[in-house]
């Protein structure tokens, strides 16, 4: 990659019979970075990553992977990419080492099956059948299958969906190790904390479009609110004067949704007393109050007015 770009998408479009999955996506992934496509389910993340993986043909637009194109260099590309698909069920009756030997046989180079087993810490399960593995172990085996060809670019589609927190952290460490080895990762996730922890840059995708792209830190900073204050207001939704709350100095935005009020504030310590005074003045009975530092989740809410996990 002479220009330091691992992946370049230009004006990508993909329509299925009844739904527009990708509606004009442009993005560049730099060599060596971990890039995240984040957004709710159905935003077009999987279609986008499968187009990058050469599994789905776009209706229009340009795809350049490692400086090559799918229609002219498919075999070369397949040898240089590592891929983990969402929800692949590997063969139940094979053991871990048999599965990896099979995948290893497809690639001209790469570590031996045993070495990759050590990398993903499945040594004790080497001869266990796939059906006997836990969800986290299966995902690590899937990651091992992606690593066995010694890829320059790794695609991970929802790598930790459905895993318990411990299994998720274990997988994050492996992905971080891969990134530290200097190679490129493109992952999709609808877990914002995953994107914040793993990704150098993220693109927030919604309805097939990139609605924001930057480092997680800069995206959070861009909404200008350091913290979010939330309190329930299910009983008296009409009585709340949101404009009055928005008028409080230091409040960036206030929204009522799902029976609670979310207020984005610049500085928690200065704004909170004033905000509480306003709440008291409006006669809202305060039964609960939560605050947290702003996250990518809040960025998504700020940009779309919706939560990521509103399904």
């Amino acid at each position: 990659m002479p220009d330091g770009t691992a992946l370049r998408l230009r004006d990508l479009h993909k329509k299925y019979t009844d739904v527009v999955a990708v509606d004009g996506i442009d993005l560049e992934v730099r060599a060596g970075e971990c890039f995240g496509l984040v957004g709710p389910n159905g935003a077009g993340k999987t279609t986008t990553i499968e187009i990058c993986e050469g599994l789905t043909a776009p209706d229009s637009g340009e795809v350049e992977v490692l400086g090559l194109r799918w229609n002219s260099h498919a075999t070369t590309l397949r040898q240089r990419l590592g891929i983990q698909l969402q929800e692949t069920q590997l063969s139940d009756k094979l053991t871990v080492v048999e599965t990896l030997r099979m995948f290893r046989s497809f690639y001209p180079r790469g570590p031996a099956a045993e070495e990759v087993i050590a990398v993903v810490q499945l040594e004790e399960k080497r001869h266990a059948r796939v059906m006997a593995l836990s969800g986290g172990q299966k995902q690590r085996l899937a990651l091992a299958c992606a690593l066995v060809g010694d890829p320059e670019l790794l695609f991970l589609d929802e790598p930790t969906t459905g895993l318990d927190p411990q299994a998720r952290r274990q997988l994050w460490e492996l992905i971080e190790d891969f990134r530290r080895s200097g190679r490129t990762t493109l992952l999709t996730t609808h877990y914002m904390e995953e994107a914040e922890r793993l990704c150098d840059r993220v693109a927030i995708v919604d309805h097939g479009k990139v609605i924001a792209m930057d480092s997680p830190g800069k995206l959070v900073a861009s909404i200008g609110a350091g913290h979010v204050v939330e309190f329930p207001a299910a009983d008296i939704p009409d009585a709340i004067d949101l404009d009055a709350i928005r008028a409080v100095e230091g409040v960036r935005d206030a929204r009522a949704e799902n029976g609670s009020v979310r207020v984005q504030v610049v500085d928690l310590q200065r704004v909170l007393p004033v905000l509480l005074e306003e709440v008291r003045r409006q006669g809202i009975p305060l039964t609960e109050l939560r605050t947290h530092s702003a996250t990518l989740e809040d960025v998504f809410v700020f940009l779309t007015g919706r939560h990521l996990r509103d399904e």
Partner: protein
Amino acid sequence: MNETRAAFAGHARARPSSGMGHPLVQLTLVRIREFTREPEAIFWAIFFPILLTAGLGIAFRSEPVDAVRVVTSDAAIAESLRRDPGLVVEHLDDATARAALRAGKAALLAAAGPDGTVVYRYDDTNPEGRTARMLADRAIQRGAGRVDPVPIGDELVREPGARYIDFLVPGLVGLGIMSNAIWGLGFSIVDSRRRKLMKRLVATPMPRSYYLMSFLLWRMVILVVEVGVPVGFGALAFDVPVRGRLLDLIVICVVASTAFSALALLIASRARTIEGVSGLMNFVQVPMWILSGVFFSAQRFPDFVQPLIGALPLTATIDALRAHMLEGATLVQLAPQLATLGAWLAVCFTLALKLFRWR
């Protein structure tokens, strides 16, 4: 973690992709492992044909024809009939004798008529009835003093090769080749598509033709067992002959298995669900179970459907196997059947490649 990072960085260990590391070898090994680790598959592929052969072989064994049962209400007639060792005679009162005939417990009722005549009551559409008529008449005429003008001698020929079991074993071998190929390939292909495992494999540099070839190679390995077991069992338990050359038998089975595998690839080329592919597999196989002469000769069907029946791959397989095993036919003599199978192979494989859904 240092070791981990070293493994991430320490790559590019070139490995020769020959021998055990060759993708085709690995894919075929996977097929064999998936098969042998499924106990039910082994049962249906290996033990079921043995049970079927043994069961049918015993049911239709060619033992000396069972003694024919006749009844009579007349003591003198009973006396004459008892002289024939081929008859089992019961002397009953008239009503019971008639009831025994109606119930099929006896094949013939010999009754005394007026003026010393004998009346035979029997069903002339039933071979056993006709046999009983001949035996009973001979016994009564001889009992009355008839002397046969020509002296005769019996020479019994119970030659392997002409019995029902000899007809059956090649039929079951052909049926086994077909159903194992179709069920085995159909299920594993659709299952791998349903699990998105196929899509994952397509995302690797694996040549797609290797994936399909691994199924054909796997069938070749299983073929040794699925043909060897019923043929060997037939030879050991029932003396079913294999009169042709062993090499020719191998060629017939390999060609047949490959043709059915290609048919299975075609059947499984689009289906996404096990239910969908099961229906298709039955739709393709059931007519052949009936028409291709597995259990009874296909010649029993009307003449105008014979060309159609002859064009079916299972008919070609079974005809070739019977001619080889029972008559010792050579490959040259079996060219028409092999050509039929070759045509099925070429057409199905070409169509399957065009239609195959890789995800």
